[in-house]
């Protein structure tokens, strides 16, 4: 097995009690104080995650916009400088090469933030289309020099505001700006992957240990805790945010994944458009649905889902929901059985456990009363 990659924060993990696991070729912290405790902290106070394993590409040049418009399904044209969008990136069969964020710096300059396990694949894919179409755009992989910290939770703004001169209140969801945190230059992005308010901070790799320590020390009195990938997974699952390799793969289309809102039909051509248009016209045959177990059994990825005596799909992600205290899952199901209220069973290690299709997200954060 190839040696695992480590983020610039790796040397600090032990001092904060981290337990590490392999994730997408990286040795990452799965937990610090415990998944349930970290999950609860993010839902009620705040958590700080090291997500420096994520990849960052810079795409710039006169044809940068054309290139991105061709490879992703969302409409990058509509993005104003200082704003970001979420989008699937599809192959010719309509399946997902990856899902990613696009940040627009100015007319001809963008950042693309991709999943750690897909960095090489995505780079080849984007640069490959650039070459194939003969476009004037430079694609640079800056992943190694950029660290990424995610500060998430209802107290995230209050905590971060104590460490920066940038006024955070006007920074809207899916917008970003340059600023300083603890004196270090960072890109402050109001985005996240937990279903809570929060920020993602892009910083120089060498500045990231001081940021990690300083943010935790400052936020600790308000209940901020370091959080790992375990809590990140349960948080995103409750919020029904897809995870590449689970709800999205090279063989699952954005329409099947319930991400149709991120496929824009009025933007012109893009890779996979014809297949997706056909699928939309016909209606999807299978789709990702949320299920809740009706007995004490946790559905895990790969478990078979049955109805009317036959297999009608598979679990893509499942866990005991720390917030709801019941087992929940996302599953790729035959569309005939994916409607809310459908009664199913999940084969939990040989036992047929009762489940029902429910509305998603499983958890939605309360609206800000002052917003």
């Amino acid at each position, binding site marked *: 097995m190839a040696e695992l990659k480590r983020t610039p924060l790796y040397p600090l993990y032990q001092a904060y009690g981290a337990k590490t696991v392999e994730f997408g070729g990286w040795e990452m912290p799965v937990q610090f104080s415990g998944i349930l405790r970290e999950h609860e902290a993010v839902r009620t106070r705040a958590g700080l995650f090291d997500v420096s394993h994520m990849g960052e590409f810079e795409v710039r040049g006169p044809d940068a916009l054309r290139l991105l418009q061709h490879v992703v399904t969302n409409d990058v044209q509509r993005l104003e400088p200082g704003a970001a969008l979420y989008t699937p990136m599809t192959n010719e069969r309509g399946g997902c090469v990856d899902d990613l964020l696009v940040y627009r710096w100015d007319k001809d300059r963008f950042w693309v933030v991709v999943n750690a396990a897909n960095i090489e694949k995505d780079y080849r894919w984007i640069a490959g289309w650039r070459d194939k179409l003969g476009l004037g755009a430079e694609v640079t992989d800056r992943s190694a020099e950029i660290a990424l910290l995610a500060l998430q939770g209802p107290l995230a703004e209050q905590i971060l505001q104590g460490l920066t001169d940038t006024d955070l209140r006007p920074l809207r969801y899916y917008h970003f700006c340059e600023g300083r945190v603890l004196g270090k230059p960072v890109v402050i992005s109001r985005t996240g992957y937990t279903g809570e308010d929060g920020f993602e901070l892009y910083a120089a790799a060498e500045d990231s240990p001081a940021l990690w320590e300083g943010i935790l020390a400052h936020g600790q009195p308000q209940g901020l805790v370091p959080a790992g990938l375990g809590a990140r997974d349960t948080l995103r699952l409750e919020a029904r945010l897809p995870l590449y390799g689970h709800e999205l793969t090279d063989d699952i289309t954005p329409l099947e994944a319930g991400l149709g809102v991120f496929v824009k039909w009025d933007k012109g051509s893009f890779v996979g458009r014809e297949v997706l248009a056909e699928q939309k016209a016909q209606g999807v045959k299978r789709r990702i649905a949320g299920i809740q177990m009706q007995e*004490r*059994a*946790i559905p895990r990825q790969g478990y078979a889902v049955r109805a009317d005596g036959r297999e009608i799909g598979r679990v893509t992600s499942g*866990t*005991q929901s720390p917030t709801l205290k019941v087992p929940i899952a996302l599953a790729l199901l035959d569309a005939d059985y994916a409607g809310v209220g459908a009664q199913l069973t999940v084969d939990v290690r040989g036992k047929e456990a009762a489940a029902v299709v429910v509305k998603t997200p499983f958890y939605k954060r309360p609206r800000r009363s002052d917003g």
Partner: protein
Amino acid sequence: MSQIPADLKYSKEHEWVRVEGNRAYVGITDFAQDELGDIVFVELPEVGAQVTANETFGTVESVKTVSDLFAPVSGKVVEVNAALADNPERVNESPYGDGWMIVIEMSNPEELNELLDAAGYQAHIGG
């Protein structure tokens, strides 16, 4: 550093055994609960069930993973820690105390000789 009480016997599968006469209390070790992380379900046999050494007698699920429980000795299950159904976190909090799982009335106490002592278990987990 994992706790490994000196007066218990241990299996390589990370169960502990406390012998009281012909009865064996069984649970999982501090090392095992720490490796699993937050435990959310414990599935145990009914009182009266027969269990066989080195075969599964239940499962324990943490947020991240599910793991089989292996009987360290053979016999009849005479007590089950019913409190774990609603308070599975007791296995994390007190693996050798309130987190005990079952009591087995041993049919072949000779099997105890196959188990590790504290030093042997310590070496087994590389401590």
